[in-house]
């Protein structure tokens, strides 16, 4: 599946809930299920700045694709990360780099989880893209 297709699938998945509480409950569930990052990556150097909660992000390069793992101390943040990872992980760096991630807007959570605002989510997406680029450049050499 392309990033676009994966995004659309998520939007559909959330569309069945018409109440904000159910949407959030689902997000919280996803957050709790997020496969946790290897403990050794939960250090300063993997912290993303600009988030209200702490977020650690790690990326590997496997078979020309970027594979992300992450964690946060806030569970809603983890839910969001889990969506981002579902969409972006195991994808090709150039596809990651050229995609936008406005699908979170389309889920219909409240606007403050929107990646188009200046908030932690923006930093997260930015950092994920940076990793993709860095891994790609390193592989090129």
């Amino acid at each position, binding site marked *: 599946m392309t990033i676009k297709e994966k995004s659309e699938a998520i939007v559909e998945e959330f569309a069945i809930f018409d109440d904000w*509480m159910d949407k*959030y409950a689902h997000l919280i569930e996803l957050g709790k299920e997020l496969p946790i990052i290897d403990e050794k990556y939960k250090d300063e150097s993997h912290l993303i700045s600009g988030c*209200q909660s702490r977020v650690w992000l790690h990326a590997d390069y496997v078979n020309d694709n970027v594979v992300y793992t992450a964690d946060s101390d806030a569970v809603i943040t983890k839910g969001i990360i889990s969506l981002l990872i579902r969409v972006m992980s195991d994808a090709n760096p150039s596809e990651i780099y050229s995609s936008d991630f406005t699908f979170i807007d389309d889920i219909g959570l*409240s606007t403050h989880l929107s990646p188009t605002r200046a908030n932690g989510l923006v930093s997260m997406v930015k950092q994920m893209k940076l990793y993709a680029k860095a891994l790609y450049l390193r592989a090129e050499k």
Partner: protein
Amino acid sequence: MGFKINSIRNDFPVLSTKVNGKQLVYLDNGATTHKPMQVIDRISNYYMTENSNVHRASYNLSHIATDLFENSRKFIANFINAASYREIIFTKGTTESVNLVASGFSDIITEGDEIIITVMEHHSNFVPWQQLCKKNKATLRFLSVLKDGTIDLSELLAMINSKTKLISITHISNVLGTINPVKKISEIAHNNGVPVFVDGAQAIAHANVDVSEIDCDFYCFSGHKAYGPMGIGVLYGKEEWLNRLSPYQYGGEMISSVNFKSTTFNELPYKFEAGTPNVAGALGLERSLRYIQDIGLDNIFKYEDDLLQYATKKFENIKGVMIIGNAKSKIPVISLNIEGLHPYDIGILLDQMGIAIRTGNHCAQPLMEALELPGTLRVSMALYNTKEEIDLFADALMKAIDMLT
């Protein structure tokens, strides 16, 4: 005059806003307060009928604006019981006031000197002193915060010494709500020949501010936290101290005369007011303080303390909820820690339910470090809040906790 909460609430148009279809419950007054129509109208009326630059012109409109502006200064001097209008400097707000004085003290603080602040300071009363000490090779020392959210004067007595050049302390903690004993601190400081700077950002709308009684050397606050406009604040300083400090910014009314070689500066308070002042802001701030005065300070304190007691009792009874800061002397600011949950998650869910509170470190990272907390959930009330709103918050909080566990 009694305290008529319904008529007060009607003065504040924002309070009838809807959020996600629900009535707004605004409990982030520590960050900024809303403005009554009286203040909004004062600003509009100024721009509609009295607007002019002040001080320099010889026409009528400018004289009117100058009088209004200077009368605001006098009103504020009186409101905080300063000895003279010359001790009232208009600034952008608390942060600028602290920076102004820190800049002035950069001529006074030398290598090896010490400045004492507390662990509970807001960044605005922390970083300016930290940077000053760094630049001038002085030492910044910190009074610790006890379990109940208060400071210990005996620690101050032990810390103060001949190298101490300044004590700067918040009148009221924006995280814990603690009212610090600033009068006693001034006494101790002055017995040791040390001046005292008091950050009154959280005090001006919620506590008695009498600079003569406190006997501090500097005091400051922001308009926007006292039902007044943004972009205006006050620095109070004793004349002898303000005279000792160099000007902060150059240009405009703070200049007495200039030639190609040198400049002489104006007298107090103008010496510290560079550039065209924010006249509309000063008038708006005067109006907001008059609003407070008209309701009656004592009425407000009584009402707010009632809210505090009610909320405290209510929150204590919610499972997993701990109140951070239990000083006897508090304003209605309550920080909560929810066992096992991140404040950020709670904040997001509360917003869904129309409740505006603050989560995070509240610009007091050192305090969070000392308390070993990632942040708190802060409920900060004002004169327009109600017990019903506290109930709505408590219900929403329980719902959020439920969803997250």
